[in-house]
């Protein structure tokens, strides 16, 4: 039904609220661990995660099997199977959640679907083996609200992810969806809306942290026949996947926020620049746009107010630098994604030379809820200069990989140990990398800093888009720096010399060090080069590219010195610096290592100790993984 007025929206909303009332009610209560499903429960909803991570583990097939199973049991009329966006707890995916008793099943396989229906839905008994096992208490937890992973989180940008069906606009409407747009269009002037966004203290979530309200004000101030609202969905930071999850789990919030932005800055054209590598997010955004048009939230005369706005999708093609707004704009124009000097800022001269406002996905996802709940509510969360929450993609050597959202000012320790459940396999924490290729590595001593834009920058890293990769004692910090620099060198657009050549030289030096050919003067050279690149590169990518190197030199200087002076890599990552040997006392002469050695570098006769020829050895470590007797060591 096409809405022609705010009253029409209210009609749809009342109808839609019925669909969500069960989930809303159950979301508000914390279920007892012991309780299963009451006999005679009349309405059951099974939420099945349909995010990219869980889909990779066949969650679509789980949903199909659940559907088939409820049909078989003749209960299809009282059970709904709903595919939602990401629940965030990717480590334990695929996730299946049962409403009304809030049972949260983890690592479900398609084969488990039948048992869930038979035991849980039909008989009312939980399938214990699929419940989350708390690693500390070793007790099964069934309501996610009891889990440490969710305990400290406040989900604002992710409010609808894992809760609503992202391909059903009515479920979004039932959650205050398009209310902010209706209020803005009918009750406020653009200036008043911009004032609210400014008062909320919301800052750009893409990395640099520019105040969003101010950006909108700039874009509004320029007069032009055409203006553009651009959503930057070119999430290029490897290991960050919050924008993707928001688009997959709550695409309508982006559509609504862009439309509000259009109203505020005086634009009728929206463009979403999205990575072609995110097919599911593209699909969900397309569905959201189509439904929004059908319901009259996009197109001509939105809600009968006379305001026109529509959104088109533009595809990226795999270039990290296109996250930079001027590069992104060139890419949308069909050109190479090379950045240009600012000013002029896009707010003055952007897409096709017209005033353009570029916001990141997570930033936009915050807009509708700020406007419905109020700027004061939002600004009461967070720190003095960084308001609200931030979504982080927690990954690497951590027990609970996933997508989390915490108030600004939460410490790294709380994130890594309370929410993340600590370092994997009981290893020792070494560093956490934030901000992706533009950020840096933080150490033990930084764990208690309340994180916000300023504190992370002061610590030598940056917020970036919110990637957070945990590293343990087995990670070599020189190799990590080299890894990031390889990325930057590969992604540098080549336009300015400091980035194109400077980073290449830095990479050569790092390669030298990891191969055991470094010298002490190289460390100073790295620092000098890094400083020059920071000061002189043209765009954000170049100016921040030395951060991983600088932060590792500053925080792990000893490790660099060890590589150079002792030709040793304590984490045993730098192959060229390793020596594999067989302990003759432990070797039983089984020959397994020699058989599997790809370089045929191991010699010996059966039942006699074998030896490794160091000149043939390619240091792949295959022998060590094969040996049953722990006879092979590396140093």
């Amino acid at each position, binding site marked *: 039904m096409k809405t022609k007025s705010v009253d029409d929206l209210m009609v749809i909303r009342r109808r839609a609220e019925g669909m969500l009332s069960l989930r809303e009610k159950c979301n508000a209560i914390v279920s007892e661990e012991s309780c299963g499903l009451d006999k005679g429960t009349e309405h059951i909803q099974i939420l099945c995660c349909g995010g990219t991570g869980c889909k990779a583990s066949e969650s679509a097939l789980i949903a199909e099997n659940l559907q088939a199973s409820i049909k078989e049991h003749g209960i299809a009329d009282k059970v709904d199977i709903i595919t939602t966006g990401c629940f965030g707890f990717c480590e334990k*995916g695929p996730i299946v959640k049962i409403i009304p008793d809030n049972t949260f099943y983890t690592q479900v396989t398609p084969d488990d679907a039948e048992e869930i229906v038979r035991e849980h839905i039909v008989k009312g008994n939980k399938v214990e083996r699929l419940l989350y096992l708390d690693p500390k208490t070793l007790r099964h937890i069934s309501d996610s609200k009891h889990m440490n992973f969710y305990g400290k989180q406040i989900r604002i940008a992710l409010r609808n992810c894992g809760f609503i069906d992202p391909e059903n606009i009515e479920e979004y409407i039932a959650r205050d969806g398009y209310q902010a747009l209706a209020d803005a269009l009918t009750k406020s002037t653009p200036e008043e809306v911009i004032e609210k966004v400014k008062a909320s203290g919301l800052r750009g979530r893409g990395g640099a942290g520019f105040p969003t309200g101010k950006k909108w004000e700039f874009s509004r101030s320029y007069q032009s026949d055409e203006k553009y609202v651009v959503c930057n969905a070119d999430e290029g930071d490897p290991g960050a996947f919050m924008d993707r999850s928001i688009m997959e789990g709550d695409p309508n919030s982006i559509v609504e926020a862009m439309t509000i932005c259009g109203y505020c800055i005086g634009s009728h054209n929206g463009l979403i620049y999205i990575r072609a590598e995110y097919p599911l997010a593209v699909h969900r955004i397309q569905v959201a746009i189509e439904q929004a048009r059908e319901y009259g939230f996009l197109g001509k005369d939105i809600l009968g107010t006379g305001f026109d706005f529509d959104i088109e999708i533009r595809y990226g093609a795999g270039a990290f630098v296109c996250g930079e707004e001027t590069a992104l704009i060139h890419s949308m124009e069909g050109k190479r994604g090379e950045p240009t000097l600012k000013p002029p800022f896009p707010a003055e001269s952007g897409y096709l030379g017209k005033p353009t406002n570029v916001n990141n996905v997570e930033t936009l996802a915050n807009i509708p809820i700020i406007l419905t709940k109020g700027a004061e509510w939002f600004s009461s969360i967070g720190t003095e200069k960084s308001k609200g929450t931030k979504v982080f993609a927690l990954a690497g050597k951590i027990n609970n990989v996933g997508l989390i959202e915490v108030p600004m000012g939460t410490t790294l320790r709380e994130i890594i140990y309370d929410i993340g459940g600590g370092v994997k396999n009981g290893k020792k924490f070494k560093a956490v990398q934030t901000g992706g290729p533009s950020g840096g590595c933080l150490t033990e001593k930084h764990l208690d800093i309340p994180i916000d834009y300023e504190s992370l920058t002061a610590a030598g890293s940056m917020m970036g888009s919110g990637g957070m990769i945990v590293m343990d004692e087995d990670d070599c910090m020189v190799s990590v720096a080299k890894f990031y620099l390889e990325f930057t060198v590969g992604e540098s657009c080549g336009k300015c010399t400091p980035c194109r050549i400077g980073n290449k030289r830095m990479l050569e030096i790092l390669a030298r060090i990891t191969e055991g050919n470094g010298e002490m003067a190289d460390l100073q050279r790295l620092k000098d080069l890094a400083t020059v690149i920071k000061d002189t590169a043209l765009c954000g990518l170049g100016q921040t590219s030395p951060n991983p190197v600088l932060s590792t030199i500053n925080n792990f200087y000893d490790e660099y010195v060890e590589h150079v002076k002792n030709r040793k890599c304590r984490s045993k990552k730098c192959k060229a610096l390793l020596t594999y040997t067989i302990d003759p006392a432990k070797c039983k002469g089984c020959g397994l290592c020699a058989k599997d050695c790809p370089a045929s570098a191991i010699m010996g006769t059966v039942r006699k100790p074998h030896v490794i020829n160091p000149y043939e050895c390619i240091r792949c470590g295959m022998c060590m993984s094969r040996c049953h007797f722990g006879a092979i060591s590396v140093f």
Partner: protein
Amino acid sequence: MSDFKLSPEVVKQVEAICEKHGNKPGELINILHECQNNYGYLPEPMQRVIAAKLGIPATQVYGVVTFYSFFTMTPKGRHPISVCLGTACYVRGSEKILEEIKRVIGIDVGETTPDGKFSLDCLRCVGACGLAPVMMIGKKVYGRMEPQNVRKILEEIQDD
């Protein structure tokens, strides 16, 4: 590459794609996406056809094709393998997976096996960081990879 010619039908289809996008230079990236979707890669003669149709120099098309990592000028294998080298996969050992694949199928990154069965590429983050390290063959994602499983997985891949 230079003596390679597109068939007249393909030329027609590529021209039709350009026309669908109004022959606008601003649509170049969308046109390239569509062409690559249809033909698997963007050989030089195809780029010339597009350039002529949009009225821009072939160098400009080539400049865009080579700028973006998503576009390729070499045909992919029937089963394209992509190993994730995003940071999460990297710290969980995806380099070792890559090494093992190279060893098993005997090609380097960016190459295709002589029989056209496999091609090998790296990518940055498919977003399945909970399953790291991850590789993809075609559209299927293989999570929690270990080097010793590589050979078996690759041997099980059969042409339909």
